[in-house]
């Protein structure tokens, strides 16, 4: 789980935090409601998770709530990794 969180934080910082934006990204930083990742950009984050974690996340599960924090993303990934629904 920690590995997933680290990976997600790194990816978000690299792809979504722009130069000059000094916001921190922590495990509980609100990504969607905080305006770091918008609902359209979620698709590329979902694609990244599916590829890196070798999982398939159904569209219905890829909600703004599920993607709002690194913690919630890690839980989602873990669910689909272990096959739990």
């Amino acid at each position, binding site marked *: 789980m920690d590995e997933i969180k680290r990976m997600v934080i790194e990816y978000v910082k690299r*792809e979504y935090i*722009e*130069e*000059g*934006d000094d*916001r921190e990204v922590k495990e509980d930083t*609100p990504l*969607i*409601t*905080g*305006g770091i*990742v*918008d*609902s*359209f*950009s979620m*698709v*590329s984050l979902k*694609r*990244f998770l599916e*590829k890196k974690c070798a999982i398939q996340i159904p*569209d*219905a599960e890829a*909600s*703004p*709530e599920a993607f*709002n924090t690194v913690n919630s993303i890690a839980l989602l990934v873990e669910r689909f990794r272990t096959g739990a629904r």
Partner: protein
Amino acid sequence: MDTVGGPLLPDQVSWSRAEQDLGYRKGDLINIGWHCSDRICRLGHAAKPALIWEDAQGDGRVYSFDDLRVLTNTFARHLQGLGLAPGDRICLFMDRVPELYIGFLGVLKMGGIVQPLFSAFGDESLLTRLENAGTAAIVTQRKHLHKVRKIRDRLPQLKLAVVVDADGLELRDGERAFALDREPRVEEFEVHPTTAESPSVLHYTSGTTGQPKGAQHVHYSLVSQYLTAKVVLDLRPDDVYWCNADPGWVTGTSYGIIGPWSNGTTQAVLDSGFNSERWYAFIAKHRITVWYSAPTAIRLLMRDGTGAAQKFDLASLRHLASVGEPLNPEAVLWSKEAFGRPFHDTFWQTETGCIVITNLPGMPIKPGSMGKPFPGITATVVDLKSYEPIPRPGSVGLIALRPGWPSMMREYWKNPGAYQSKFQNGWYLCGDRASIDEDGYYWFVGRDDDVINTGGHLVGPFEIESALLEHPAVAESAAVAKPDKVNMEVVKAFVVLKPGFAPSDDLDLEIMNFIRKRLSPLAMPQEIAFVESLPKTRSGKIVRRVLRAQEFGEPVGDLSTLMDD
């Protein structure tokens, strides 16, 4: 006459009545900024809250109409002090912070042409729009400044970048700090003497061909925006109104600034991404009475179910309306269940400046229909070839409006050919197809061109394809709409790779992020298909309709002009 908030009977709804309400007679000076602030104070509402603002963390601030009057004066004076002049295009490139709303009116008060742009635009999208407009200054935040810096040397007309939160930031040549809160307040300001046809707002909008075009509006548009806000949104003196739209788009200015404030209505703004519980909490906290939202947001709320709504006291909601794309019947029915009342679909576009076809409060709604023409708007559907009105109910044609309503755009910025092409046979063509039923209700069928409507925003394929071609791996590309349950349509890109490149998940993701950062999240292809070739005419033009038809499961039509493989 204190007409702010006074209800109108149906036969009183007219542009001339709106002029009377606003105290405007033909030939008078008229300034949107003044009408949205000073005039409301003069009517005795100086202490009334104008803006209830809250950020994602729940921190908030309330501005009265007198605050609005003084702060917009301050903003306007500051811009003058920087050497900006009437007629200058001044871009506002900020998140939904108070400076965006205040700055909008401030630019108008000093006679500038305000050019609001969606803050999620990447540097290429910003460059296209600033270059086309010959923008003189951009007002932005530190987090977006790097995009401006990246393109600055390609914008010789851009004199200044003004940063509203620059504390501790090392500014470069041509950059200025402007902390509105610390600026000495300007109580009295001589508003620039704008007239009805003085240019006011320049909104960029995407079309099928070419880069986005600047729809130029004038101060007289206020007449339309005031009246339609009052009647369609049913704004009343004690309302607290919430418009979800960002002022980077026309809904966020016509009905997120001009409409409500010219009516003296208190409005609430939430600077936060989507979260259903956050939104419901916001409605409950501020006792929102009128809510203007969008089908994409409503579908996301539907996904979270009525249970999520029932956790909050939403009894304050009195009237709901929707804009951006057709509101599907399920959403209308769901909102009755969730909120006790339906969302009323409204139809209009950047070029029209105001709502033109709509479901009015109290009018029976036919779920799925955009309603009927607003009083003062003459509308019809015309034949796709002859542009003659089609009299038979149920026949599909192009939605057409008789030109001349107050907020009709006056030009596409420096593009008279494109502007003229919007008018045929004495009608303004919206670019959408619809039918009219026997009761006069309009039913949307689809776009008449290749523009993609994603989440209620129009995205032009040409801009996306041009950006795709800048990726080192891409040889050719086509961008079309793909149906989507939440957003109605999303962008799908068909890509032919250059020799030496092979399709892969890594490349797919790389291209998606490339477009997202250069253009915007809206323009980002949500799906990429790597193909060997694209359907083209014998003259080499890519035929997007074939790809689109395949995505929508529709007949591909006449293929006789296509190149053989």
